């Protein structure tokens, strides 16, 4: 390996040589004691010896705030801002931040490859610089040494009187051409030692985290945590985001913007009805740390933390992620007889980098403009909309899937598809007025246009249902997605056994799909049971919560599949009622509600442990989520 000597006195010339080829970004001072990456104007401003920058270079590929779409409310149309490829040189990047970029490449490509990120990131060249570990760095414990050159084109090692420059790639060599440097005559000095350590490799950490859900550390740290979200905001591997529409004061034009979001914030998982799925600060802290060492790591074999130390260095409450992890390790060792193997200060990495999953980067966030064909008022709060895609295209959905409904100015919301795929030309959305978007939706008329993305989610697996008795348990608007399944079964009636529908609602005024209920009730091939919590004086049907219907059902337990959807509180009681009937757990499927903001497995809001509800759900096989914290 040839290394060249870049004397301190020639660093400015070196930067000018780079600037002549491409825009250069490098660290510079900000404020009293901080550093930030910024476009280089004067090479004198560049600081190559720095502990860490406030944000990593992530900000150039996944900007803190970004305009996804711009729209015109009068024309009900939208355009996309052009995404500029940075095509730049990132100079002075530390090895852990380079590893963080490689991790983002993986996340933003997995499942759906996001165009916005990759369009910006492609072609960027990276010049690394070594760092002296301070009291917060611990990247060595994650297999990333200060001299790690993975991902770089050129690398600068801090040596006496300047830098040793190493050429890593052909692109790096090309950058250097025309700038002559002498060879370095002496070997590299050893790099500085880390002061912070997690002495356990990822494979063992995974085992530790398997047993740490209930550890007292979560509550203890939560007592000191103010849930400000800073740890997420400064993390180079965090990529969750929120999306919001903004409209100008003339109410004519607006933009759909995304910004970084933080899973430590209370409102992160809040859904339109007001439910917060990780309500406690301790649960949010646990989710954050599991995201770094367990959930993604189980897929990739590597920790998803790079040891930059930002979350700890910038925490005003001095909460340390290293202390949390070491506490979990110690407690696990205490509880189990086997001691975990101690590793070296710089552990071996499981793999060399990550190749981002193949596939073409796609525009994930632009809706197609569809037309409302009809609107039917079902109850005071619910309307049923028939929607037609441009040119009468089919949605090609499965029962149980959802779409992201988009109204410019109000934003997007996940809405279950209520019609069976057997219905051609249009599809149905049954929508309750509960939030800003649905409120606006309720004012629209046939002929108005709305944005649609999707279908998203897994839907019910019809192959598992065929030949079986189908038991539908629907609470309130849980009937909306299940209606799609019911009508699918009805359309192919021979393929299934008995069809048993249990439907519960708060009151008879709130019962949905009046005409169809009558048909289901009269159809001899359907066993239809309805109950309401409170009946009006002329209600002659059953009164009681939905669980009161279950004991009376005569079921062939071996051949019945239960498909359940309703408000979060309903699941626990319905599952208890089924259990007391000895209903087999492996025959239960549930559709869960979460805040599915992006629909494509990126924004992070709908996550339950390592599962993205918008991708892996919303329909779950009960045994798969039975023991899962935060699921039910």
């Amino acid at each position: 390996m040839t290394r060249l000597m870049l004397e301190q006195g020639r660093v400015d010339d070196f930067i000018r040589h780079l600037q002549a080829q491409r825009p250069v970004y490098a660290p510079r001072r900000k404020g009293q004691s901080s550093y930030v990456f910024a476009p280089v104007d004067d090479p004198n401003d560049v600081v190559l010896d720095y502990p860490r920058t406030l944000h990593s270079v992530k900000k150039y590929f996944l900007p803190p705030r970004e305009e996804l779409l711009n729209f015109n409310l009068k024309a009900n149309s939208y355009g996309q801002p052009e995404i500029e490829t940075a095509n730049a040189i990132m100079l002075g990047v530390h090895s852990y931040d380079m590893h963080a970029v490689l991790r983002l490449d993986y996340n933003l490509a997995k499942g759906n490859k996001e165009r916005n990120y990759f369009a910006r990131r492609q072609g960027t060249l990276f010049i690394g610089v070594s760092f002296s570990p301070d009291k917060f760095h611990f990247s060595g414990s994650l297999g990333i040494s200060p001299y790690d050159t993975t991902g770089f084109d050129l690398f600068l090692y801090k040596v006496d009187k300047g830098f040793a420059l190493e050429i890593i790639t052909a692109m790096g060599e090309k950058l250097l051409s025309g700038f002559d440097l002498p060879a370095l005559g002496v070997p590299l000095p050893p790099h500085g030692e880390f002061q912070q350590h997690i002495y356990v490799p990822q494979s063992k950490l995974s085992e530790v985290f398997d047993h740490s859900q209930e550890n007292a550390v979560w509550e203890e740290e939560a007592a000191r945590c103010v849930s400000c979200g800073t740890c997420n905001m400064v993390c180079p591997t965090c990529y969750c985001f929120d999306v919001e529409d903004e409209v100008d004061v003339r109410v004519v034009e607006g933009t759909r913007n995304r910004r970084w979001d933080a899973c430590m914030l209370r409102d992160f998982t809040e859904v339109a009805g007001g439910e917060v799925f990780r309500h406690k600060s301790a649960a949010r802290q646990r989710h954050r740390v599991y995201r770094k060492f367990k959930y993604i790591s189980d897929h990739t074999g590597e920790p998803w933390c790079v040891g930059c130390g930002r979350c700890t260095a910038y925490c005003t409450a001095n909460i340390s992620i290293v202390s949390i992890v070491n506490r979990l390790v110690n407690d696990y060792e205490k509880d189990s007889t086997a001691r975990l193997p101690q590793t070296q200060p710089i552990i071996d990495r499981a793999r060399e980098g990550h190749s981002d999953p193949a596939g073409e980067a796609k525009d994930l966030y632009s809706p197609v403009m569809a037309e409302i064909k009809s609107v039917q008022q079902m109850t005071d709060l619910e309307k049923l909309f028939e929607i037609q895609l441009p040119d009468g295209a089919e949605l090609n959905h499965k029962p149980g899937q959802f779409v992201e409904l988009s109204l410019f100015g109000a934003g997007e919301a996940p809405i279950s598809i209520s019609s069976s795929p057997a219905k051609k030309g249009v599809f149905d959305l049954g929508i309750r007025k509960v939030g800003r978007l649905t409120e606006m939706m309720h004012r629209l008329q046939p002929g108005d246009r709305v944005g649609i993305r999707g279908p998203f989610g897994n839907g019910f697996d019809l192959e598992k249902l065929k030949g079986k008795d189908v038991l539908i348990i629907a609470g309130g608007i849980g009937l909306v997605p299940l209606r799609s399944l019911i009508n699918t079964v009805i359309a192919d009636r021979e393929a299934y056994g008995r069809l048993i529908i249990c439907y519960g609602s708060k009151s008879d005024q709130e019962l949905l799909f009046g005409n169809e209920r009558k048909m289901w009730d009269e159809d001899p091939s359907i066993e239809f049971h309805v109950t309401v919590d409170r009946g009006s004086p002329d209600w002659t049907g059953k009164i009681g919560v939905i669980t009161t219907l279950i004991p009376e059902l005569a079921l062939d337990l071996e051949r019945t599949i239960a498909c359940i959807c309703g408000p979060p509180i309903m699941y626990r009681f319905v599952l208890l009622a089924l259990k007391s009937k000895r209903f087999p757990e492996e025959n239960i499927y549930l559709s869960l509600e979460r805040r599915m903001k992006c629909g494509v497995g990126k924004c992070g809001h709908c996550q339950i442990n390592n599962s993205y509800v918008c991708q892996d759900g919303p329909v779950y096989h009960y045994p798969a989520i039975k023991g899962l914290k935060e699921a039910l």
Partner: protein
Amino acid sequence: MSAKTAQFITIRLSRASRRRSKMSKKARVAIFDFTGCEGCELNHLNFEAQLLDILEHVEIVEWREAMDEKADGYDIAFVEGSLSTPDCITRIHKIRRKAKFLVAVGACAVIGGVNAMKNTRPSEEIREEVYGKDKYLFPSLPALPLSAVVKVDFNVRGCPMTQIEFLKVFTALVMGKMPVEPDHSVCVECKLKENECVYDKGMICLGPVTRAGCDAHCPSFGQYCYGCRGLVSEPNLKAMEEILVNHGLSMDEAHKRLLLFNANQIEGVTS
């Protein structure tokens, strides 16, 4: 905003629906003030750049600071100031009855503001200090946010409220959608701007427990966050005080620092 608020919205102000119902009527807006410095109200007058655009959508029917008409009813009432006398209570009820939407504007109206600091001391003592022997001529109440007395539909927070945020709420109401009120810390916005942490400048800051929405204005200009926008919901005040103490304040100072704007939320609304 909750589902209840969603149902509450009956006003039809969006362009689309107006076009459909062939309604040309503009939204009738009134502006009121209670106990406060009138800084927020003055800020309304600074909308020179946007005023014509605003007036395309609304007709201002009552505003003491700029006009002297008295209206019978209004679609939106923007109310500034806290409630601190029995007369205030009567007036706010009257306004609520006449308004379809009531928007609290500024820290005093939303959380009681700095006025509420007086709530932590005995009322008699304060009245004597201010009015001397004539104190019986000036009945006084603890300084209350509007929401302690009437239903408030939306908040425009801050001391003073910012034009950007006011326009956001205003635009949302004109569109007929509910404005979004952030429920996370100022730190989030501060970090989005990549500001150096105020604590790293050697100062203390209430950003970690204060509601965002100001785009971290003060920390972006070398100041610390005073907490004028009120606390996030479910704030961990004990942890916040500990942070302040760890950064050099005494426990008493830390507590007082938090009370500056948030006396009502921390000590409870006294009424």
